[in-house]
């Protein structure tokens, strides 16, 4: 009997779930709580990190020399500039002279490389019809020449598929700039303006433009003898911009420009932004570690840092003038009978001057009943509500 009994007990024990810290939900855990110390320190450190970064960004941004010159209005001869329709007919006509000369002065010394951008405003490269109208397959290799389904528009014509197909390529920007200073031409380097990865992988060296701009002419034409991988203007253009106002790299000037140097630009104003009231700007800019001129980042850092700092100060003041509630518990009397009575607390406070009297008071006044109020009284209340309804 006994043997059987102990066997039974063993059997019982063998059914017991295996103990492991995971199954018992007893994995050692780090349980942080939001103590004033931690939170205030955190906010101070955010401020300490953010403010220098913000200043550095602002400084870097300040050091960028940027020349922005809007030319879309200025480059319309006065006879055409009365209304939009005139401007459109000017820009769309193949006979009008589109050459336009602009002059400006370099405000500060610009170190090379100086990047030349064209900036378009109110131009929706991110429009759904536009952004999807391309065929990466076609661009990549010659074999996929006829894979034009993704383009939908400007995909093919009677002579076969258009290479490169789609609206993006078709609307390629076609203004050109020629820079000179004191009648000396400033060389513009148009090599290496596209991403290396694009010229290597996305645009095939064996893909040549074909049938391009043979129907309605949208933007620039492409030299059919140069493979796509070397058509850097196109490659830059086809990196669609996410904002309706964007800059695209036109070229680089590989020499320094001195302060007050007079620059003359000869612009071939071909691109039609007049139909939709878009601006065209020519931008010359140097660059630093944060990129081009961008005060926003610096200001944002300063704002966040400043806010964190003021939060830290506010919390600190709150902590000093309205002590935390949890201190109560820390210095709560462990005497089970009288500890929570008012008398008990007073006594304790007298014994321990500078203790936690104020916080205890606060607790009692503010907090004590909340739980119960929240809890069961509401239950009682909802029931009495029920009762009234039942009576009616």
């Amino acid at each position, binding site marked *: 009997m006994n043997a059987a009994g102990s066997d039974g007990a063993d059997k019982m024990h063998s059914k017991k779930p295996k103990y492991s810290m995971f199954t018992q939900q007893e994995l*050692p855990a780090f349980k942080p*709580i939001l103590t004033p110390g931690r939170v205030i320190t955190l906010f101070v450190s955010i401020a300490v990190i953010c403010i220098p970064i913000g200043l550095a960004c602002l400084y870097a941004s300040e050091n960028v020399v940027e020349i922005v010159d809007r030319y879309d209005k200025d480059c319309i001869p006065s006879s055409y500039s009365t209304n939009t329709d005139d401007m459109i007919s000017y820009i769309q006509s193949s006979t009008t002279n589109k050459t336009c000369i602009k002059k400006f002065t370099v405000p500060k010394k610009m170190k090379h490389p100086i990047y030349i951008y064209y900036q378009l405003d109110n131009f929706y490269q*991110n*429009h759904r019809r536009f952004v999807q109208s391309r065929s990466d397959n076609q661009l990549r290799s010659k074999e996929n020449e006829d894979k034009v389904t993704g383009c939908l528009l400007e995909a093919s014509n009677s002579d076969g598929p258009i290479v490169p197909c789609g609206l993006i390529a078709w609307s390629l920007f076609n203004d050109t700039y020629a820079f000179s200073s004191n009648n000396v031409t400033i060389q513009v380097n148009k090599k290496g303006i596209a991403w290396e990865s694009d010229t290597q992988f996305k645009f095939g060296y064996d893909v040549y433009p074909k049938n391009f701009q043979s129907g309605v002419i949208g933007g620039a034409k492409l030299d059919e003898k140069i493979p796509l991988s070397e058509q850097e203007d196109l490659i830059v253009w086809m990196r669609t911009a996410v904002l309706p106002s964007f800059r695209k790299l036109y070229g680089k000037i590989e020499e320094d420009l001195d302060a007050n140097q007079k620059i003359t630009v000869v612009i071939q104003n071909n691109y039609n932004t007049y139909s939709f009231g878009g601006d065209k700007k020519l931008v010359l800019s140097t660059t630093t570690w944060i990129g081009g001129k*961008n005060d926003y980042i610096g200001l944002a*850092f300063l704002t966040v840092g400043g806010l964190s700092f003021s939060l830290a100060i506010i919390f600190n003041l709150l902590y000093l003038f309205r002590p935390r509630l949890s201190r109560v518990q820390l210095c709560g009397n462990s005497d089970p009978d009288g500890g929570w009575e008012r008398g008990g607390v007073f006594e304790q406070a007298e014994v321990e001057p500078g203790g936690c009297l104020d916080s205890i008071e606060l607790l009692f006044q503010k907090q004590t009943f909340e*739980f119960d109020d929240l809890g069961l009284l509401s239950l*009682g209340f909802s029931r009495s509500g029920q009762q009234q309804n*039942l009576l009616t």
Partner: protein
Amino acid sequence: MKRYVYINDDELSQDLYCDNRISNTKYTILNFLPKNLWEQFSRFMNQYFLLIACLQLWPLITPVNPASTWGPLIFIFAVSATKEGWDDYNRYLSDKKANEKEVWVVKQGIKKHIQAQDIRVGNIVWLRENDEVPCDLVLVGTSDLQGLCYVETSALDGETDLKTRVIPHACMGIDFELLHKGVIECPNPDKDIRRFDANLRLFPPFIDNDLCPLTIKNTILQSCYLRNTEWACGVAVYTGNETKLGMSRGVPEPKLTAVDMMIDKLTGAIFIFQIVVVIVLGIAGNVWKDTEARKQWYVQYPNEGPWYELLVIPLRFELLCSIMIPISIKVSLDLVKSLYAKFIDWDCEMFDIETGTRANAANTAISEDLGQVEYILTDKTGTLTENKMVFKRCCIGGIFYGNETGDALKDLELLDAVVSGSPDVVRFLTVMALCNTVIPIRSKSGSISYKAQSQDEEALVRAAACLHMIFVNKNANILEINYNGTMAQYEVLDTLEFTSDRKRMSVVVKDCKSGKIILLSKGADEAILPCANPGQQTRSFSEAVDQYAQLGLRTLCLAWRVLEEDEYQEWSLIFKEANSSLVDREWRVAEVCQRLEHGFEILGVAAIEDRLQDGVPETITTLRKAGINFWMLTGDKQNTALQIALSCNLVSPEPKGQLLLINGKTDDEVCRSLERVLLTMRTTNSEPKDVAFVIDGWALEIALRHYRKTFTELALLSRTAICCRVTPSQKAQLVYIIKSCEYKTLAIGDGGNDVRMIQQADIGVGISGREGLQAARAADYSIGKFRFLKRLILVHGRYSYNRTAFLSQYSFYKSLLICFIQIFFSFISGVSGTSLFNSVSLMAYNTFYTSIPVLVSALDKDLSERTVMQHPQILFYCQAGRLLNPSTFAGWFGRSLFHAIVVFLITIHAYAYERSEMEEMSMVALSGCIWLQAFVVALETNSFTVLQHLAIWGNLAGFYIINWIVSTLPSSGMHTIMFRLCRQPSYWTTMFLMVAAGMGPVLALKYFRYTYRSSKINILQQAERLGGPILTLGNIEPQPRSLEKEATPLLLIQPKNRSPVHEPLLSDSPNTTRRSFGSGTPFDFFQSQSRLSSSYSRNCKDN
């Protein structure tokens, strides 16, 4: 409809009925895919996603690759289908094992080995001792000469005792090997395992060709085991899935938790929001198209579009916004819910060493509801008590035994009376020893153990044995009794079985020596005493019953009557006839029994103690402190029930407790009593009294039938109720009443009579106890002991609720976050429906990047288990739905809006002008979202284990690794993008800026609320983590045991002495609230939104 089973006749029944192949599987290989898909698509959310996915196949409107929806959709379907398939495969394997088991079949007198699945209806199956019964059989032969065999039916009904089964008398004495012609007429398969009303007719050459009635006693059912019998054989009548067991396997209706319903509601709200956004953006898009886009020559808008042109842009936005409803939420919830269930299964602290049972969550989907329980309806016997009956006292012929010693077995007076052979005592002991269905089993060492169906009977037989009336052997119908060394034999002529309606059982025995026929009876007092011989005074017995009930003992009245030979013979015929009737057999038998059971000579009252289980009072106190209302529903007598209720802290004794009795026999009486109690209840509700009402089954029946509304009101006013002498269906009705008032109910019980209540309640908990496993099988959770309920609710239920509340709202947050960014982006992309993010990112965002960190929130613990156990009041936050309701959701909604603004503004400004490149910027925005969500999860996590760190920060690293990998593929849109970004210092400063700007205000707000508007959870967290105060608070809390005596929270005079300001931090009784403020004060300010709305809806319903 009937079925005719031709014994051993292959031709006649071959194809009529199914073979014995058991199949519990839901699917077959062929129908798995369609059936599973059909089931999955019957859910609204899946239909929605399918619609979205189909719309995406239309290239004109799809903003991204259709794979971004199809991918996750297929993934999610695959996960669900795999889970289902795996479960089904396991079922298939176990079925296969059962089906391929070898069994013996007798064909033409020859035993053959065949597989269990090949048994056909009509075959004769031959079983050896300890074999499992493969299908439902009608017994036709056993090794026993009397045609008896013993079966263990625990797999069927959970009862562990052995049951006797007997072959029909027509087959008696016939060699089963010759038996091959006959027909059994039996009803069509049903699931009633206590009933089998059939007939057997043997064909010639057998002489006895009469119709022979068959009952459940003549059957052995599938999944039982043959015990103590060398062999037995039977005719298969029901096979395969048509057996009684197979028929009772039902698919339980899925229960939906309150949390699930809230999530559904929120999903609906988000859906409406989405529609509004779509309509607004759709109109804006069409307007912009007509005014602006036609001027943008480079997009080549045609002047005339197709007829559906106006719809295109709204549909695009519908697709763009479809991610607002997180596709992953269902899978995430399923995963964490099964983990919660596993935690319950794994819990060592809920393992009952005594019986070797562990807690088991049969229903994996409703753990959150455990944390929201408001009413617990509990059975008494076996649930609160141990159901371990011990004979304690008795009253024989007006003399009380055991009153001084507390144990009649040690009462010298009684022992003397036994030795001296006082006739009253001897008769009393004889009834104790004989009037039962106990089977004595003699072990090899000579000791006798008893196998009994009822614990009471076992206790009586044991006690009789201690008093030298030893029930030695049961040999067929002959019972042997050893009294003081002399053997006596009795032949059992008939057994009038116990039913809950009759509340008594009797046996008719014949004294083998004297030939006297005696009727021995035992039963409840109200079933026995009225049948007493009119000449006998029963007052002393009813006094004894009252006295014992006061002590919380169960009482049984024992009686006997000597029958005249003629009377018995006459009755016996009617009884046999009633027993073989096919219709209303139970009722007719009961009626016939009535004819015999009268004119009793009452012998005495036996009192049996059923001890409370360990930890019951503590558990009830703790759970009541947690704001849970307790109802006790029992079939027992009022006094016994009250006594138990007192001793387990369910009600408090006078003066702090008050019991209101509802009784009456007629409608009017009950009505008046009900009104009176209701009035008292209303007036005392404001007082700190512990008021409970007590109602018995009869009054309850009337109240439920005629005064349901009044009763419902009373039910909701009262925190405690005791319902005695209630039937199983009344128990279920009570659950239904509370449930219909939208309170979360939990029913706990251990016996077959609790099954209906358990199934009716929101959560059914079964105690796998001595009354068998029936309750545990029907229940959603089964535990070994009542005290584990505390842990089940306070630890598992509460954690589950908290975790799900976070997980579900977080899922919406992250979906809304990315969706808001898409919406903002559409304003700068000409409202044309361009997606900022590429397909890969969108697909991975919802299913991968943001799903994994939040899954580990299933391990988060806001408070330690110990703290929760010490401060059960904290459960209120779960009950009231404080952590998941429209207002908390609004907080998450606002947070996602704020974060979307932060990410969007910083991205478009930091990456303006020359850096405004589509792919680059979309990755910047996406990484901003990922960083923010990692910090959001981190901020909302209360306890970081290794796994949390791994998931949160590992996921962040995983994001970069995945994107680096994708960036190496030249064919992907984002070729080299991630490498470029990671080289830019400005990318990292932008990330830092986003996190600081996004999390700073959130952290500040959280800190402020945590410190200056702290919830009780926060206070306990601070207490727990900063040390010390737990002790303090723990000390204030009175020990549960002493609560009753010291009466700290419930005394009436207390509030006068104490001003409310002196309350302990977490006062130990919820009742204190009523005391502190009085009932009239409106506390709607504190009321949670959900509580208000639910009470409102309740009111509406009632009107």
